[in-house]
């Protein structure tokens, strides 16, 4: 564990990413303390440019809503949707991938055809359709993101299981009479964890982007301020008030970049021998 931390800290980009994510997370958690009022409330004159008034450092939008408050509350939505939908997608993907990879044969065939069915539909189009049919709410958005992001996870887990199943220590576990469930749980899964963790971090980043895209298209949850919605709402004002779309855009950029950096750092830290080969 210590070696892992040390190896992670050696990658400056990854440390930078971690710092940004910690800051964004603190912002998200502290949102109700920082801005008691709803970010939808009109608090000041409309279209105050950024860095002109101390109370509204990032300015206000065309209805006089505080953009800073929007950013802080938006962090909540982005991170929550990113995390929750990734965790659900991962659990589902691991179950499907593990079953396919471990049992092989016709079970593998059936599960993989099912997975391919989802993979053949463009991700964003599928997500839009799901949200449009179910009606925009935080649950339907998370469901849609989960539905489009589990297939790659399932494929990854399947390939990991297929190689690990051939390893001698798994064969040894069969020979000493361990039951299949126990072999999957204690022998194979722990050894497949590092690539799963790495891809999970990239999945979070993709989920945040997908949520932003949905909100931009007006399919966001009506009750929750999100970065994607802020950009979508300001697209008609882009010539008069650039800051309305730039700040949420920067927020998305930084968060997604940070998560990608973390993923890369984890990849290097969890697979030290791969890193050496590249150098």
């Amino acid at each position, binding site marked *: 564990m210590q070696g892992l931390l040390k190896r992670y800290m050696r990658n400056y980009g990854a440390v930078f990413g971690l710092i940004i994510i910690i800051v964004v997370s603190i912002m998200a958690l502290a949102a109700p303390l920082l801005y008691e009022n709803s970010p939808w409330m009109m608090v000041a004159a409309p279209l105050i440019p950024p860095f002109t008034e101390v109370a509204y450092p990032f300015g206000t939008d065309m209805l006089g809503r505080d953009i800073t408050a929007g950013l802080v509350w938006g962090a909540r939505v982005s991170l929550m949707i990113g995390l929750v939908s990734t965790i659900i997608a991962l659990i589902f993907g691991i179950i499907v991938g593990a079953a396919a990879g471990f049992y092989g044969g016709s079970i593998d065939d059936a599960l993989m055809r099912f997975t391919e069915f989802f993979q053949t539909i463009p991700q964003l189009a599928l997500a839009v359709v799901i949200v449009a049919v179910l009606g925009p709410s935080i649950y339907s958005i998370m469901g849609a993101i989960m539905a489009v992001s589990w297939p790659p996870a399932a494929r990854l887990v399947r390939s990991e299981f297929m190689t690990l199943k051939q*390893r*001698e*220590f798994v*064969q*040894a*576990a*069969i*020979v*000493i*009479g*361990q*039951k299949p469930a*126990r072999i999957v749980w*204690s*022998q194979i899964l*722990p*050894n497949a964890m590092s690539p799963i963790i790495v891809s999970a971090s990239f999945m979070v980043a993709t989920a945040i982007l997908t949520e932003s895209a949905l909100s931009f298209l007006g399919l966001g949850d009506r009750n929750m301020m999100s970065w994607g919605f802020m950009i979508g709402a300001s697209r008609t004002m882009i010539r008069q008030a650039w800051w309305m779309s730039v700040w949420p855009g920067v927020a998305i950029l930084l968060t997604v970049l940070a998560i990608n950096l973390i993923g890369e750092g984890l990849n290097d830290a969890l697979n030290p021998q791969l890193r050496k080969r590249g150098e």
Partner: protein
Amino acid sequence: MDQPGILLSIRNLTVPLPSGGDRPYAVQDISFDIHAGEILCIVGESGSGKSMSANAIMGLLPDYLKPTNGQILFRDTDLLQQPESVLQKIRGKDISMIFQEPLSALNPLMTVGKQVSEVMQVHNEYPGEQRRRRVIDLFNFVGLPDPESLYDVHPFRLSGGQRQRVMIAIALALEPALLIADEPTTALDVTTQAQILALIARIQKEKGMGVMFVTHDFGVVAEIAHRVAVMEKGILVEQGTVDQVLNFPSHPYTKRLIAAVPRRRFDESAQASTAPPVLEIRDLKKTYMLSGGWLGKKRAIKAVDGVSFSVRSGETLGIVGESGSGKSTIGKCLLKLINIDGGQMLFKGKDIAPLTENEFRPMRNNLQMIFQDPFASLNPRHTIGKSISDGPVAGGKTRAAANIRTRELLELVGLDASSFDRYPNQFSGGQRQRVGIARALAMEPQILVADESVSALDVSVQAQVLELLQSLQEKLQIALIFITHDLRVAAQICNKVIVMHKGRIVEYGSPSQIFDAPQTPYTQSLVAAVPGKQWIPPGSGQQVSMPS
């Protein structure tokens, strides 16, 4: 120093390892000469620095390893002082190299003819039409069949031995003065190895080259070397003529290595056990189907084709064969790791072949396996103690009882009880193999299958593990099925030997029958191919004890 005939002279070469390694130097202060027209064998166990010295000559050391001291004099120029551009002119032309893995040393996307002519192209030799002619001559010279059509063939169509011949052709293309061979036969079967060794010896004689031959195998040394240098942990401990080093070793390490070379034991246990066989195999069949796609025909490969044998308690049965003979498939069939296509497997009279996995699981403790690769056969995320005690726990014992038994077993296989809480990466290959043995013994098996269990180990460690297996078997009266490609190892520990070829048993008998009077042509060729068979290591027959 400058006597004629010295081709390459290494003087006090020192290459430090990056800090944090297990020793400060990869090679330390080594000096040796290679004369024109001789084969110098560099022998040592893994990590002895033998490949490192070969790579240093070719300038192939990785960036983090830089020689700090010494000279590599090739025809009186110090290669360490030359810029890359000069080295490029020397490589392939004056000094060339053959590698261990013929599989990965050739470019899979280029025809073998092109790969050979590439060397000439790089050095601007044999222009135009001559080049193709030269490649075909070379193919002829290294004994490849049908050189004309082989020119346009991709490497995947060739066998391992043929690929190694292509590699040798590349190395010889420009008639180098010095050939470096880094374990060129280690990945090959014994009969192929014999052919390649004979080829290298012939080429060396005809061309009068100097050859530096890196190997870990004393049999190969006895077969091919003129002079020998022995390396241990980066230090050159002994060098001399082949007769001196093999028959009158002076350094204790050399003595220890030579004592560990597997050999026939002389007390052939003739006391044939009269107990009824604990496992009887009748007409075992296993066929692998390769689907040919929608248009192609299905191909069936008979991996095991009607094999019958039996083992008794306390008996060691060797299954010997080359790669593809089906010997490992038999091992997997016995443990029901793969399904069989026909035949019976009678364990104490009960046929276990038709049992489903769930029916067989309660019986699994009777049949255990020691795996081939000590690095892959232990779960890297489990402690040694957990790896061993998992089996008894799966069999219904409490964790506490299993832990007590595990500690006893660790002691039995010669490991410290403190190993219990450590992880596999803290152990050497030999120690891990001991853990693998303890894991199998924890199940209190009646039959133990050892599939190439000592092949991945260095010779001195191999001797220790073999000794351990033998003593355990005598103590516990287990039936041991020992699968190996190495006839010498089989001769050392088996009571009975089966020789397999293409899925069938070609010969069955006691080691002395098989080795002294082989009946079938295949066994004869196999026995004849054992490297260094004329050499009888000094001190044969006497018990050699070694610190573990």
